[in-house]
């Protein structure tokens, strides 16, 4: 199992770290160099952490944990109006991004109100394309209790964020609610931290389930294989988004067949993946379990 961490440091000898990662069978997920600042998202086998830490220490950089790395999270608010965005919607999205997740934000078309709140079938499908969802609701206990019924139909792990601190709901973090300014005070950051921990636990449950029935190949490995054949175009941001059980590939229709012919180990991608067009962006590759498709080596 890969461990994903973030390296922050200078450009001094950072290529040595990249080489070390490749030598131990790890991958570079994201790389960004801003003048003299370097940021790398590294994925490497968990047992090699000590060696990486030693190298980072030698380079004078820092290594941060990314508890949500390798996941795509959908943050859902009842609407994209002033009442919910930009605060706290963007604060939550940004905080989760700092913890390694790729986040999308979504406002429901008819999600406002208590009795009248609805979620369309298409919205449900879009939310279910991600690994987990975070529902951000308002200040009123009665409204949240009613709206949670909307979330219950979702088939992916989800959590609810709202105002009242003492609501007895599953995977609920209170104390956020409606905001008129940025969440930058200590108490608010602690709340966001608490929310991340809760989300981490939900995702850990999903990962545990997946470990019982392992995938034919890791999404990280498939990403590497795709990038070898189809390198990212200049200026393109995150053309491949990693999910826990697959990938979102942002390609045009013309590349659809080409991507399925990519070889992963001894098999073709079409043999170990199911591909469908995303309702939101690009294509979704869902990796089949090893028990169904057989191993790639």
């Amino acid at each position, binding site marked *: 199992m890969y461990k994903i961490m973030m390296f922050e440091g200078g450009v001094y000898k950072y290529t040595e770290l990249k080489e070390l990662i490749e030598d131990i069978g790890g991958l570079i997920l994201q790389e960004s160099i801003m003048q003299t600042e370097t940021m790398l998202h590294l994925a490497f086998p968990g047992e090699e952490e000590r060696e990486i830490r030693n190298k980072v220490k030698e380079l004078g950089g820092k290594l941060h944990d990314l508890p949500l790395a390798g996941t795509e999270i959908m943050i859902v608010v*009842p*609407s994209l*109006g*002033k*009442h919910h965005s930009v605060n706290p919607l963007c604060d939550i999205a940004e905080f989760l991004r700092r913890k390694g997740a790729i986040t999308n934000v979504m406002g429901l078309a008819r999600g*406002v*109100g*208590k*009795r*009248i*709140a609805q979620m369309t079938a298409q919205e449900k499908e879009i939310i279910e394309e991600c690994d987990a969802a975070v529902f951000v609701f*308002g*200040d*009123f*206990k*009665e*409204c949240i209790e009613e709206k949670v019924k909307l979330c219950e139909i979702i088939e992916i792990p989800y959590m609810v964020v709202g*105002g*009242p*601190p003492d609501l007895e709901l599953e995977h609920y973090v*209170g*104390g956020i*609610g*409606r905001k*008129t*300014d940025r969440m930058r005070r200590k108490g608010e950051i602690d709340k966001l931290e608490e929310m991340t921990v809760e989300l981490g636990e939900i995702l850990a449950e999903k990962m545990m389930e997946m470990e019982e029935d392992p995938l034919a190949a890791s999404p990280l490995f498939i990403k590497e294989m795709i990038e070898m054949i189809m390198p990212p175009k200049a200026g393109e941001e995150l053309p491949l988004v990693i999910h826990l059980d697959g990938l979102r590939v942002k390609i045009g229709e013309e590349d659809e067949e080409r991507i399925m012919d990519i070889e992963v180990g001894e098999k073709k991608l079409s043999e170990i993946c199911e591909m469908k067009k995303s309702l939101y962006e690009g294509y979704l590759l869902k990796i089949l379990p090893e028990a169904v498709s057989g191993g790639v080596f």
Partner: protein
Amino acid sequence: MEVNIEGEDEFANKSYEKICQDAFRNIGVRTSIDHTYLYCNPMEHVFIISVKIGRVSSPVKVGDMTQRGKDKLKITDEKYAPRLLAMLWDKYGKRVQQVSRLEIGLKLEEEEIEALRDLIVYDPRDDLIPRILDGIDRILPEGARVRSTIPSTSRITIIASENPIEEDWKKKAEEMVSVVSEHV
């Protein structure tokens, strides 16, 4: 601006007090409001907001936001610059030109320039009510789209709900507002 929130949920009351203060401040009408009263009943989904309008700041004249130079005006408060330019172009046409970001060149007679300094650029009274209504819209929960107003000379009172507003609620709101008005 004083804010009173009435509701059963302690957290929501506190939060809505801040929302009221911030929403009106962001729109720039907080100083023109004396008192805001908000009643929240999420159980029946009825929200009543009543805003008492207070003193409104005096109109901004050309002389208040510019400094006189030789054949030109220097803008000291850029916030009103678009309004000022639109007004001057409308009145004097090509005889007024924007020389640089904060300078306006004038090809006017001395008497015209003197008279110009007393022209009103912006009167906060003109758009006070639409701005307060915008603030109220931002405060009230989004789902409460069915609205009903209670007429009054010095107050704006709105009942909002997601359900049709019943006569009982209107009566209740009138009573509540009259009680609040007595205390303020």
